[in-house]
């Protein structure tokens, strides 16, 4: 919540105007919309905070607890795809940045292996949530 929502939003407000103009320059020259990325991070941060609250307010054997845990993992993975793709989660870690300086230049950042590792982390975390739910349900006091 603090890292995804509060800090990025505050930093954008508190930035001096010169740095803000650089943010606009980045958008003009590369198409990377930093303000949009921070807005998405804010929304995702709020969603993760709400899911974390829901998870902590329910018992481990509750189906709501499992849904909140799995949704958190999925949203966290979406957020990393969004950041690794520099605002385009469908690029799956291969961000292509057109550089508009008057000629036809393109930069490409290939982070597909990092995306793969991230997907593995999400899968193992989801498996952990399911295992915890399964055993909590088995050991649940009747």
């Amino acid at each position, binding site marked *: 919540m603090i890292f995804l929502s509060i800090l990025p939003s505050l930093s954008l407000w508190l930035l001096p105007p010169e740095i803000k103009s650089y943010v606009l320059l980045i958008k003009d020259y590369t198409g990377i919309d930093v303000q949009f990325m921070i807005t998405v991070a804010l929304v995702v941060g709020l969603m993760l905070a709400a899911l974390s609250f829901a998870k902590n307010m329910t018992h481990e054997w509750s189906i709501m607890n499992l849904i909140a845990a799995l949704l958190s993992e999925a949203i966290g993975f979406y957020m990393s795809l969004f950041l690794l793709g520099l605002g385009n989660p469908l690029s799956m870690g291969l961000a292509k940045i057109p550089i508009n300086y008057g000629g036809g230049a393109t930069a490409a950042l290939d982070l597909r292996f990092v995306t793969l*590792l991230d997907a593995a982390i999400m899968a193992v975390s989801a498996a952990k949530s399911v295992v915890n739910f399964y055993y909590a349900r088995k050991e649940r006091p009747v």
Partner: protein
Amino acid sequence: MKRKASKILSVTIIILYASLLIVSSASLFSISSTLVGSLERAEDVRFDSTTNPLTGVVNLAVHVPIRNRGIVEVNVKVAVKLISADGTIVAEGFDSKRIGPGETKELLVVATFLRGTVDGADLAFECRAFFDLIGLSFSMRVETPTEGYPSP
């Protein structure tokens, strides 16, 4: 049983997170350091060309020194495609080298073409690290400023 399964999965998650952090930071640091180190030595890029006055064949050699200031080995590729006015590739050359941390190596791109046939060039630079799994590449088109110029 629950504790054991959960503990195994927790340890796996920690190992995966640590790998992600180490691999991505070491690779990105090495790639960006190599890029900055090479840009700082941009004035050291050497162009040698020889023209056969009888046939008009030009041999162009581009020497690109690359310095890896990172902490892991990087694989650097430089490619040049020379293009005619109608967009066909007249000549192309590329070179790639694996450069260890702290090393400087020179990449040599050679292209042979007929004088007066080249109207532009596609230049590409690629730098990859960690078994070529993480990379950064640049490509740009350069037009030769001959069209539209008044003849003397």
